[in-house]
């Protein structure tokens, strides 16, 4: 091939921060083309996708509601990825957090007091962390790669939840619908503002984002994570415990995903259902990278991703477009972001065919 990627000696710093905006713009343009091909007015469709969800207080509240689990999952994923631990199973950890916390809520029924809710939140985090502990054990003990194990455990978690709501935890008065009883009042996160569905989870997630930023920048543990991710040999040389970093990052990201899960079921959903998340755990991966693995960037990215969810629903309702369309736009967003990053870190060079052809083994080029 006459084109070659060359590492740039000095990537432009500003561009690294601008690339999420570039990616968002490119996705919007590509989305417009997609709408045109599907036979809709692209401008109108874009307006529905990006602006219509924001034209009311209720819409803004829904945005915050959707952004919350994305934010929690993405913060955890970012901390893990910073250490070069690829937890792509936040969806499963979210599910198990909902199961563990929801189980507490169901167990106490109407009999619980004010302490039920904190207990549920703790149980949710513990559930998510426990689910992430399995890949941590497999990685540190058997060197099994976490990309495989975290992903596969996601499907186990989904099946487990499905079995619970179809079987032992099914609501006996629920006309055989696959769902549990509604949580009691003490086991429910109430809306903070009348007329919206925003709960305590949203400010909690924002506080966690700030704490995560402080953790990465101010603490030695955060520094160890960054060194481990950037240069594992330097971490070993400095005497940082590699297995400890794997455990810590997986447990933290699992706990945050679990927190997202219990906040969803104890908040807007109110009970356990076979499916409790429209893929927040997976979208969280996109959000983490869109936010440059930086907690404040992730706050902005989670709002953008939440907007795509809401806009997708509006498109479905007003233009009868399938939900796959916003999914495609989500995918394009990640694709354009990665492409922009490649071009920021590398430059494309036209190379005359001679150098591109194979060079005999004796020559170092």
């Amino acid at each position, binding site marked *: 091939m006459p084109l070659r990627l060359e590492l740039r000696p000095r990537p432009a710093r500003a561009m690294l921060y601008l690339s999420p905006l570039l990616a968002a713009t490119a996705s919007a343009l590509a989305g417009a083309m997609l709408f045109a091909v599907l036979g809709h007015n692209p401008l109108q469709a874009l307006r529905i996708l990006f602006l219509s969800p924001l034209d009311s207080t209720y819409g803004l509240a829904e945005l915050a509601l959707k952004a919350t689990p994305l934010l929690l999952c993405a913060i955890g994923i970012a901390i893990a990825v910073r250490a070069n631990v690829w937890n792509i199973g936040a969806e499963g950890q979210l599910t198990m957090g909902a199961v563990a916390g929801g189980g507490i809520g169901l167990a106490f029924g109407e009999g619980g007091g004010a302490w039920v809710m904190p207990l549920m939140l703790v149980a949710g985090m513990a559930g998510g962390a426990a689910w992430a502990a399995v890949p941590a054990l497999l990685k540190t003990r058997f060197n099994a790669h976490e990309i495989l194990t975290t992903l596969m455990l996601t499907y186990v978690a989904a099946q487990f939840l499905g079995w619970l709501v179809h079987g032992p935890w099914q609501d006996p008065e629920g006309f055989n619908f696959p769902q549990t009883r509604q949580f009691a009042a003490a086991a429910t996160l109430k809306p903070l503002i009348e007329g919206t569905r925003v709960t305590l989870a949203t400010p909690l997630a924002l506080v966690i984002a700030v704490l995560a930023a402080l953790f990465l920048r101010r*603490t030695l543990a955060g520094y160890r994570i960054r060194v481990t991710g950037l240069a594992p040999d330097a971490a070993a*040389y400095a005497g940082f415990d590699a297995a400890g970093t794997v455990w810590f990052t997986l447990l933290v990201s699992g706990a945050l995903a679990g927190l997202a899960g219990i906040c969803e079921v104890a908040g807007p959903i109110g009970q356990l259902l076979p499916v409790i998340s429209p893929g927040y755990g997976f979208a969280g991966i996109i959000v983490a990278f869109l936010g440059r693995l930086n907690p404040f960037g992730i706050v902005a990215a989670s709002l953008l991703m939440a907007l795509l969810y809401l806009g997708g629903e509006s498109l479905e309702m007003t233009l009868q477009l399938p939900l796959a369309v916003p999914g495609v736009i989500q995918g394009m967003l990640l694709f354009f972001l990665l492409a922009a990053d490649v071009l920021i870190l590398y430059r494309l060079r036209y190379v005359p065919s001679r150098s591109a052809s194979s060079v005999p083994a004796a020559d170092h080029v």
Partner: protein
Amino acid sequence: MSRSRLRRRDEDVPRLSLAGITKSYATMRANDGIDLAVMAGEIHALLGENGAGKSTLVKIVYGVVAPDSGTIAWEGRAVTIADPNAARRLGIGMVFQHFSLFESLTVAENIALGLGDRHAPAALAPRIRAVAERYGLAVDPTRHVHHLSVGERQRVEIVRCLLQEPKLLILDEPTSVLTPQEADGLFAMLRRLADEGCSVLYISHKLEEIAALCHHATVLRAGRVIGECDPTQTSPRKMAEMMVGAAITEPRRVHPARRGATLLAVDGLSLPPDAPFGTALRDIRLELAAGEILGIAGVAGNGQKELLAALSGERRAPSPETIRLAGRPVGTLGAAARRRRGLAFIPEERLGRGAVAEMSLAENGLLTAYGRLARAGLIAWGRVDRFAAGIIARYRVVASGIEAEGRSLSGGNMQKFIVGREIGLAPSVLLAAHPTWGVDIGAAIAIRQALIDLADSGAGVLVVSEDLAELFEIADRIAVLYAGHLSAPLPIGEASTETVGELMGGLGQVLPAMEALGAA
């Protein structure tokens, strides 16, 4: 030695002549109007510090890199060398610093591949033997490369060049991987080749070698030709000053009269290799005293990496008593715990191990100094910044500041920073792996002086190096690592290049030399 023959007569047409060669990369001018003439039968040294432009220049001659401007004349005719094949057709051969041989193939198969045209390895074997014999290069065409020592591999590369009957042979730092005896063999071969009329372009920064071998030297600095000299008539110090562009004061080592208390003791350390082609450590015993510099010589791949990993704690010993730090057993402790007990370590690789390329110098200072720059798990950034700024000032690290990323520094400056950081920890024992490898002369002198000063202040310093001249300059005692076994240390006054060289080549060792070296 008949090395001062006069070979340059004005009426001769140079075999290779370069005029105004210029090559710029994005941020710097690697070659800036270089003129160079190499005569037939001349061994011509190309001298210069790292980054002076030597490698770029020979890559241009060998057709790997195209110059931006300037002309190349071959035997008086202007030529364009488009690629290495064109260079070989002219009669130019090159032996690179890093070899390109397939481990699983035989010598003859490797050479057949390298020759490009279709050659049956079996048919090549007699030719290989003939060339090898003629130049005194012990090479067996039927052996597999993975059995060969580094020196033997180099001979394979040279034979591959010689089979093409070159008129100009380029060698890039060829002795960096050889024992002194092997280097002598190489020099004899090069002299023979030159006597037959082949020109040699010899890149090195080892001045003694150049004085012993070369007829003429061209000195480069910052991409320009600074001067030419007859190395047989010019003192190594003068040549070094030409390279650096400043007067040079070599560090002085006053060997301590009495040995201090033992700070580091290793008693019968044996470890199996932890990676394929690694070296097993066999019954290592050593003692390092306060105020002492112990040098460990050896050809790369004889267990240096393994020994350093075991001493630093990155790999743990089977029992605590095997390694003692200031009398306390530490064999089973990890690297962090040993650091807390006063051990510091300058590793061989700078970026990726000794420092993080993507992090600032301030953050890189924190890498091993976290014990004193953080409290209760919180980083004191003010102190971190001051610590890094102190290293930069004290060791004259050339960098844009404490926020400069590790990768923006040259190798020598990164090394100065790492040395400064580890010494700044005020260790009681410092392990230094190849502390001046690839570092230019000015920085190397500063680093050696810093090691000497540290020892004088009462610390024990263990230096692993392949540079014998360096070890003789700074070490009080010297031991040789060969095939994972450490010889008994000799006081430097009783050691000579010959005795150490013999130990480096495995003389007096029971194990088969080749097998152990093949693992390199």
